[in-house]
C-alpha cells in the first residue's frame, strides 16, 4: 500500500489563494486505508480550509468528492463536470492520482498530501516502510525482510558497524534490518543463507534506470 | 460488692452531701482523672466512670475537668497495679508509667485525681520522677474540701495552691 500524510494547511492555503471554487478530491484506495485521503479526511480538510479562509475574510466554495481510485483514467473521467465548475482541484490522492488528474484536466491541480512510501500497517494507526520498489526482489534470501527498504544504508551483506543491541544507529527506534534478518534465518534454520555473499546490487531495475514501465502484452491494447 | 463512687454520686444526687464547686469558680484549678482499671474497665465499666465524673464535676466544677485520652473503660493503666509497685522492677515500672505521665502532662492539669492507692502511689511517683508539676490527690480529699470540712491536717496531697482554701478548723493544725 502507498502511504501518505496530509500537507500542512498553510501550504495548501498558499496554493489555492487565487481561487475560490475548489474541488477537493479524495481517493478510496491506499490513502483511505492509511487515513490520509479518504472520504473522511476530505470532509475534515474541507471544513478546515473553509474556516482558515474565512479567517482571512474569504468564503471558499468547496465541492467534496471521493473517487474509487484516482490513478485510473476512467474514474478520473467521472468528475469532469465538477472540475468544470471549479477554479482549481486539490487532490487528496497519492502522487499517482494527482498526476492522473493533472494529465486529464487543464485546471490547476494541487496535491494535498505528501506521498511517503510503500508500507504495511503494524497496527491501527501505525504504518512502516516495507518496500522500496527496487525491481529485483531479494526477500527470498533475506528471510522475508527487506534490507533495502528497511536498512538506512541499504546494505546487502550483514549489518554495518553501527548496529548495536538490535537497533539502527541512525534511527534508534527502528530495528536493525540485518538483526531481524539474522533472527528470522535462525528461526527458520536457514542461517547458511546468510553466508552467501549477495553481489553488488544492480540499481538499473530500480529508479536508477530511469522511469519504469510495465507492459503486459496479453492485456495491453 | 460495690464501689464507693456509686454512693458518692448517689449521696450527692440525693442532697446528702452538699458539695459545691464555688471555691474553684475563680481559681479555676484544673483536674484530670485517672480511672482505676480495677474498678472501671475490669469491674463496672463506663457507668462507674460516669459516676466518678459526676462527683468530680460537682466538687471542682465540670469546666475544670480536663480529660486524659483515652479514658473511662479504655483508660491507660498507670502501672501501679498488679503488684508492680512492690515488684522491685522500678525502672520498668517507670518506663511503663511514662505514657501515663505524658497523658497527664498533656492535659496541663494541676491535679490528677486517683481513686485507688496503687494509682495514687504510681501517679505520684512518676510525677515526681519525671519532674511533673501536678499533684496527686484522693477524691475524698476533694469532696471534703468542697463540703468545707477539710481540716488542715488532711491536706497532705494538696498542692500549695489549695493548702489554704476553705480550711476547716485551721486552729487544729498540728
Amino acid at each position: 500500500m502507498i502511504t501518505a500524510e496530509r500537507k500542512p494547511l498553510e501550504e495548501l492555503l498558499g496554493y489555492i489563494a487565487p481561487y475560490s471554487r475548489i474541488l477537493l478530491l479524495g481517493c478510496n484506495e491506499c490513502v483511505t486505508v492509511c487515513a490520509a485521503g479518504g472520504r473522511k479526511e476530505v470532509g475534515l480538510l474541507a471544513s478546515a480550509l473553509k474556516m482558515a479562509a474565512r479567517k482571512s475574510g474569504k468564503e471558499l466554495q468547496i465541492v467534496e468528492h471521493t473517487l474509487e481510485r484516482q490513478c485510473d483514467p476512467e474514474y478520473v473521467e467521472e468528475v469532469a463536470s465538477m472540475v468544470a465548475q471549479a477554479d482549481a482541484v486539490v487532490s487528496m490522492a497519492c502522487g499517482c492520482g494527482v498526476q492522473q488528474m493533472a494529465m486529464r484536466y487543464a485546471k490547476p491541480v494541487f496535491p494535498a498530501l505528501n506521498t511517503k512510501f510503500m508500507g504495511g500497517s503494524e497496527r491501527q494507526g501505525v504504518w512502516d516502510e516495507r518496500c522500496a520498489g527496487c525491481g529485483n526482489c531479494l526477500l527470498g534470501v533475506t528471510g522475508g525482510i527487506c534490507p533495502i527498504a528497511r536498512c538506512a544504508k541499504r546494505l546487502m551483506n550483514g549489518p554495518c558497524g553501527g548496529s548495536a543491541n538490535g537497533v539502527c544507529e541512525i534511527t534508534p527506534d527502528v530495528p536493525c534490518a540485518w538483526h531481524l534478518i539474522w533472527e528470522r534465518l535462525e528461526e527458520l534454520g536457514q542461517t547458511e543463507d546468510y553466508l552467501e555473499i549477495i553481489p553488488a546490487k544492480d540499481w538499473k531495475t530500480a529508479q536508477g534506470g530511469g522511469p519504469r514501465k510495465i507492459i503486459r502484452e496479453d492485456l495491453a491494447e | 460488692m460495690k464501689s464507693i463512687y456509686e454512693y458518692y454520686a448517689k449521696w450527692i444526687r440525693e442532697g446528702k452531701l452538699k458539695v459545691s464547686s464555688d471555691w474553684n469558680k475563680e481559681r479555676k484549678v484544673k483536674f484530670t482523672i485517672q480511672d482505676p482499671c480495677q474498678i472501671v474497665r475490669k469491674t463496672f465499666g463506663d457507668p462507674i466512670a460516669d459516676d466518678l465524673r459526676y462527683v468530680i464535676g460537682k466538687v471542682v466544677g465540670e469546666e475544670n475537668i480536663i480529660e486524659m485520652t483515652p479514658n473511662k473503660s479504655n483508660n491507660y493503666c498507670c502501672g501501679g497495679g498488679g503488684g508492680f509497685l512492690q515488684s522491685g522492677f522500678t525502672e520498668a515500672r517507670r518506663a511503663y508509667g511514662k505514657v501515663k505521665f505524658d497523658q497527664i502532662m498533656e492535659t496541663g492539669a494541676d491535679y490528677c485525681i486517683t481513686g485507688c492507692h496503687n494509682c495514687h502511689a504510681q501517679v505520684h511517683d512518676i510525677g515526681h520522677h519525671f519532674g511533673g508539676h501536678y499533684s496527686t490527690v484522693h477524691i475524698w480529699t476533694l469532696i471534703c474540701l468542697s463540703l468545707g470540712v477539710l481540716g488542715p491536717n488532711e491536706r497532705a496531697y494538696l498542692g500549695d495552691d489549695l493548702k489554704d482554701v476553705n480550711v476547716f478548723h485551721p486552729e487544729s493544725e498540728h
Partner: protein
Amino acid sequence: MQKKTKLQSNGSVLVVGGGLGGIRAALDLAEARKDVILVDKAPCIGGLMTQLDRTFPTNNCDLCTVAPFTAKDSRGGHLDMRGLTTVTAVKGKEGNFTVSLMTAPRFVNVEKCTACGECQRKYPECVSFAPGLDPRAPTCMRYPKATPYAYVIDMAKCADKEGLKQCCPVGAIETDALPKVEEAQCGSIILAAGAALFDPSHLDYFGYAAQPDVVTSLEYERILSASGPTGGKLLRPSNGQPPKKVAWIQCVGSRGLQKGAGAYCSSACCMFALKEAMVTRERFDSEIETTIFYMDMRAFGKDYEKYLNRAKEQYGVRLVHSRPHDVLRPVGMDKLQILYTVDEAPKHITEEFDMVVLSTGFKMNEDVKKLAEDLAVELYADGFPKTDCFNAVATSVPGVYVCGTLQGGKDIPETMTQASAASCLAGAKVAVTPRPKAELPAVTPECAGSPRVGVLVTLCDHESTALDTTALVEYAKSIPHVVCAAAFEAACDPSSFDAVKAAILANGVNRVVVAGSSPRYELEKYQAMLAPVGINKYLIEVANIREQAAWVHAGEPAAANAKAKQLVAMAVAGVMAAKPLADHVVPANKNALVVGGGVTGMTAALELAGQGAKVCLVEKTAELGGVARNLVKTIEGGDVQALIADLVEKTTSHPNIKVFTATEIVDHSGQVGLFRTGLSVNGAYKEIEHGATILATGATPNQPQAFLLGENSRVCTQLDLQKVVNEQPKEVKKWKNVVMIQCVGSRDADNPNCSRLCCQSSIKNALAILKENPNARIFVLYRDLRTYGRFEEYYQKARELGVIFVRYSVDNPPKVEAAGHYANVTFTDVIMGRQVVVSADCVGLSTGFVASRKSNEALAKVFGLPLTDDGYFAEMHVKLRPVDMDKAGFFVAGCAHSPKVIAENLTQARAAASRAMTVLANDTLVQEAKFAHVDRARCAACLVCVRACPFDVPQITVDDKGLGRSYIDPVKCHGCGTCAAECPAKAIQLNQFEDVQILSSLDQLLAKVNA
C-alpha cells in the same frame, strides 16, 4: 411427570427485598416469563448498592450501571414491583404459599407524580430518607434516578397536610392514604432483603461515637459519592477540610467473639476498603496517604489479588498487618491518633490521621430475621439462615430460598450469582405464563414518505413555570415541515393521549418531536404509545426542554424560552434526518449446550432439563464427575462422592439430557437463540443446534515444582493429603508433626491470583487429621488466611484444637529439606522473631488451581470468547453480570470462571441455568435497531472498524460479487458508534445517530433563532 405437575401449580414467585439481588432474581424470573412480586420496605428499589460511590474491582460508578437495571422496561408484564411493602404473614407450603402483604402509604400517587420536586421544596421536613451522615440527600430519593421516579412523604412529620396537598401541581399527594393489605398466592419465596451493618458506636476505643472524623465504610462511601452529603467532595466531617491521611480498620464487627461482633468474616470489607483507598487517591488527591490496618487481606475473588497488587503497587495504598488498639483524639488536638504495633518488634506506634474509616461488617437484619422465623427457616445463632452444604440458596424450608447478604456477608458478584441461582430454583416451582405476542410494527412506506412532523409539548405547567408553552407551540408551528404542534398538559392522563393520537392521524404526521423531559424517560414511553398510530419508533425525537431549559434556567425565563425553542428546532432537524428502522426478530432454538461434565456442568444441565429445556452435556473425558472425583468431603462434612453419584445417576437418566462423553467441541457458528456447534464424539463429527451455551469446563489442580513436591515422599498436595487421611487412618495416627504451606503456586508471578479454596481445604484437612489423631501438632504457614464467610468458624475451630497458624512473607518463605525419615520445615515466626524448625511427618502443600489454559484457549477460539490474563473465561461484567459472557447466549459457571469450592460452583451452575432460561424461554428474540451498518459501495476494507470495535463485531466478508467488505452483524453490534467515527471512507453509519442526523441538529443548533 412430576416436573409437569410442579410447573402446573400456578402462581408466582415472591421476592422480598429490592436490592441488587432481589432485582436480579426478579428480572431473571420475569425474563423467563414467570410472574414475580417484588416487595421492598423502602419506597424505591435499589438497596445498598445505590448508596455506593463506585464498586470494585472495576472502580466503576454504580449509579449508571444500576440505572438501566431498574429503569429497563423489560419486565414484560411479569413483574409486579411494590415499594413500602412488607410481608406480614405467610401460610402454606412449597408450591402454595399464601402471603399477606402490607403496603404503607406513600402519600404520593406514583402514577401521577412527575417528580417535579415542588413538595420537597415547600415541605422539606416531610422528606424522611437519610442515607448516612447527612439527614437529607439532595432529593429525598435515595439516588437521583430512583425507580419508581416519584417522591415519598413522611406524613408523621407533616404539620400542614392541607397545604402539602395543595402544593402539588398534579394533585398526586394523597394525605389520607391508608395502608393497603393484600393476600397473594405464590409457589416459592426468595428472601433477598439484605443485611444490616454492624454499628460500632459502643466500641469506645475506636472513637466512632465521639469523633466525627471516625466514620463507617458506608459513610465514607457516601462522602465520596457524587450524590452524597458533600456533593462528591472528600471532606472531613469535623472541619470540612480535605483530609491528608486516611486510615481504614478492618474486621470491625466481624471475626470477633465479643462486643456484638459476628464470628464469621463479612467477606466484602477488605475489597471495599481497598477500593475506597484507591478511589481516594485516584479521584480526589493522589497526595492523600491511605493506610489499611488489617488482620488478613482477603482478596479471594476473581482477579481480586491483582486488584490488591494494583492498590499496593500502582496506587501506593499502604497495608499494615495490625489491629490497632485505639483511635484517639486527645483534647485540643485536630487529628486522630491510631495506636498500633507491627509484627517485627514489641513496641507501640502512634500515628496521626485525619480520618479513620471502620470497615464494619454485615449483621443479620432484625426485621428479616423475624420474617425468616415466621417462615420457620432454621437460623444460626447469629441469625443468618442455615443453608444446605451443596445448595447455598436453599433454606431448611422447601420453597424458601435466600440470596445475597441475607444469606451471609458477600460482595456484589456473589450476590448476583446467588440471586440468579435462587431464581432458578424458585422459578422451577411456578409455571411459565404466556406472553402476549409482540407485534413488531412494519416499516411502512408512509413513514418514509415526505416528512410531516408533529410537535408535542408535554410539560405540565408546574414543570414549565419558566416556559411559555403557548409561544413554544406557535414557534414549533412555524418550523418548516411541522404540520401540527400542540401542548397537552396532563401528560399522565390517558385521555389526553387519545387526543394526541387523533391529532397525529388527522394531520398525517409521520415524524414526532416530543418536547418534554429527558429522552431517558420519555423515549421508550412515546415509542410504545405512538406505535399503534403508525409512527416508527425511530422517527421520534425528544427535545429535553425540562432538564435542559425549564429547570436549569428557571431563573432566566427569556433565556429558558429561547433555549427551549432551539432545542425543539434541533429535534425537528434531527427527526427530519432520521430514518425509519425495523427491530430485528430472531427465532430462538430452545435447547442448551453445557460444556463440561463435572459437578457444575451436571447441575446446570439438570436445572435446565428440569425446566423443560433439552440439554446436550458434553464432557471431554470418558467419565462424568470432573475434578471433584478427587474429593472426599466438604469442610461442612458434605459427602462429595455421594453427590457425584447422585448427579451422575440423575443426569444420565434424565429424558431431557443427552450426555456425550469423550467429546470435544470442533466448530461453532450462529448467534444467540440459533447456535450450531460441531462435536467430535469419540472421533465422529456431529452437529447440534442450541439457543444457549453454558461453559463449565473447570480448572486444573496445580502441581508446581516447589518444596520438594514429587521428590520427597513426606511432601504432598492437599488433595493427596485428603486421600491419605481418608484411606490410611493408621498412618495418620502415627504422625506427630504436620506442616501445611499455603499459596504454593498461587499469588505469585506465574499464577498471580488467589486460588480461593486452599485456606479452607487446609483447615478441613487439619481438622480431619486431628479427628484421627488429636495429639498431632499441626502448623499452617500462610500469607493471609482467607477463610471468608462461615469458613472463618472452621478456622476458629482449628485454632481451638491447637492448630498453629504462622504468617510468612513472600520475601522469607519457608524451607523444606529432607531429613531422613522426616521433612524438616524451617520458617520464621515473626512475632517471636525466631526461626522454627519442625521435623514433619507430613508436609501438605496448598497448591490450588490454575486455569486449564490450553483447552480454554482452544474453546475460546472456537466460540469467540474472551479469556482473562490467567486463562479463565471472562464474564461480561465482573460485578453485575458474573455468569453472562460478552457474547450473548453464553454463560460461564464453576472453576472455568475462577477457582471456588463445590457449593459455590453449584450456585454458579444454577445461576447460569437461570440466565440461560431467560434466553431459552423465548420463542423469538427482539433486537433493537441500534446497530451500525456498512455502505459496502464505499467500504475500502481497510480493517479500521475491525480493529476499533471494542466487541470484535465487524468482519471483512466476501459478498456474492467476490468483493471483500466489512460486515457488521446487527445482532452482535452494541451500537456504540466507534467504528462509524473512525471509518476513513465514511462507509459506516450508526442507526439513530447517523452523521446526517447529528450534523442537521448541529446546523439547527447554530442557526439563529428568530425569537
